[in-house]
């Protein structure tokens, strides 16, 4: 089985993280922003897996399991928030919710 070099894995994780961050910054639709956050979480998980494989340690996979669990919990809460958000503002645009500006 060909071993994937650790540099490639980390590069992929970096690209994914950047795409997620960029999406978070440019998107105004709250659903897309949530998806971007998921992509960033997955990038982080991938980085753990790669690192775990590199040093042949199970810790990386354990961390990935924790991230998955946390992402599930996060989505559960976030979707409930999105529903409340839509009821409140009749839109999914986050900039509509800037009423607490200083």
């Amino acid at each position, binding site marked *: 089985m060909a071993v994937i070099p650790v540099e490639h894995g980390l590069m992929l994780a970096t690209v994914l993280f950047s795409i997620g*961050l960029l999406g978070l910054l440019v998107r*105004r639709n709250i659903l897309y*922003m949530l998806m971007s956050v998921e992509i960033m979480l997955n990038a982080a998980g991938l980085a753990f897996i790669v690192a775990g494989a590199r040093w042949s340690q199970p810790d990386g996979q354990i961390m990935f399991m924790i991230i998955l669990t946390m992402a599930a919990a996060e989505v559960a809460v976030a979707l409930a928030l999105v529903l409340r958000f839509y009821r409140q503002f009749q839109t999914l645009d986050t*900039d509509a*919710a800037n009423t*607490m500006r*200083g």
Partner: protein
Amino acid sequence: MNFVNSLLWTIPALPLAGFITLALFGDRIARRSVSRIAVGTVSLSALLALVFAFRFVTAPPEGQAFQQALWSWIHVGSFSVDAALRLDSLSMVMVLVVTVIGALIHLYSTEYMADDESYTRFFAYLNLFVAAMLTLVLADNLLFLFLGWEGVGLCSFLLIGFWYEDPKNGRAAAKAFLVTRIGDVFMLIGMLLLFWHFGTLHIQTLLGAVNTEGHSWHLTLAALLLLGGAIGKSGQVPLQVWLPDAMAGPTPVSALIHAATMVTAGVYLIARMNPIFIHAPGIQHLVAVIGAVTLLIAGLCALAQRDIKRVLAYSTVSQIGYMFLALGAGAWSAAMFHFFTHAIFKALLFMAAGAIIVALHHEQDMFKMGGLRRRMPLVFWTYLIGSLSLAALPLVTAGFYSKDKILFEVFTSEHGKLLWAVGVAGAFITALYTFRMNFLVFFGTQKSEIHKGTGLAMALPLMLLAAGATVVGFFELPAVFGHFTLFSSFIEHTLPGTHGDHASHSLELMLMAVSTAAVFAGIAVAYFIWGSAAKKSSDVTKRPLSRLLASGMGFDWLYERAIVSPYSAGARANAADAVNALYTALVSGIEAIAFSLARTQSGRLRWYMAAIAFGAVVGILLVVYA
């Protein structure tokens, strides 16, 4: 009879109780009861004082003083102040004057103030004053004395500004308070110096320590500072400016506070602290010089006043100048004797003047009086007796014996010749202004209508004091007239004796003749100027010299230019408060930063995200590269 001795505390406590009653329940008490409480408490104090005086003579207490410790007032480490009373012969004289004359003035006030709407307030203040003054003279500790000292200052302020609806009176009250406060600060520093050096403020212990220490710069400085306090309270040059303005208060107040008692607190202080001054001969000489300068300046100012009360006020300043002169010359008992006679005849003069002022519907200008001799015979005769005593008419008046004792002892003291000459010149001026006043008020043509007669409550004190102004002189006769020294042998239980006894009788007679000649010359000149043609002198006030004298030798003008104006100008210039500007700038700077940072709180989620990401990047870069 120890029980009577233990009643010492009631002498100041009775007027204090009167004050508390009037202050708390005054508005629920009928006027008649108010005057009963006020006059009653002070009269009881006077009776008690007389009992103590009687016991003092018949059964002299141990150590020539009644003592009573009341409670421990302050006790911190080695510093302890007891609220203790001590009644020796010096205090005895003061207490008798304060209570007896105080009681007479209270009685007089019941009629004088009868129509005033703040009747209760007046008597409450007056009772408080008597209580504070008694604390001052009975205190056995300098700090306790200072309590009374400030108490009388407060009452003086309250009573000068009694008719506070007129802002002029309020200004006079504030002026009196501030000017005496300058002296009080000196006195406080002096007390602190004494405590720092001797470790106690208990007067007897302190004076004992002073006598064992002898001459030192501490004592010289302390004497100077105490003198500062005495000058402020007693209206001596250069702090005399408040006393003439203090006449804004009701006339009984002028009689009690600004003639008989409070203004002589400075004399009492110096007499009480006499060892300090004896061991600081330079300062003691300064006391005499201040007294001489004051008696001359104030006497000259009294010559040009139109207001009858201001004449009396300047006269008071001048007579206290005599007392200071005596203190400075080491004639302690003569100073106290003059205090004693002056309290009587000056209270008499003020009260008689008050009777005239009431009769003429609050007219105080002497040039609008005149010819009152026939219309107000009682007031005329009592006023004349008081005036003769003030002018020191020989043989029959109290003022003669006390003033002559001062002049004689000043002459026989060291470097006393010049001071004596000033004193004799002062005697001439005293006679001159006293009889100017008499001729203007009682002789000539009548210019104002009399609205109101003099009732019994006002007449009785006048008659009693008129009798006193004649009789008390015989308590102390000079060597040539039998050498009867009731007063000085009494007071010399406390104060050091005099030195002039060895002087020859011929010298004494000669000095007496000179001062008598000065007095008669004064009366004669007054008769020639004001006795015959009173109206001629009314425009005298337009001449520059008279204007200068009428304004009190320009002291007010000088202080206005030198102190008050620069101070107010500074205050106005700094109205925006330069120091505060620094703090305002600090506040507005922080505010500006806070507002600009608040703008980043835009409510836009994506901006927050960008900020977090940026922060994370910076953080990582710092961790990796720094």
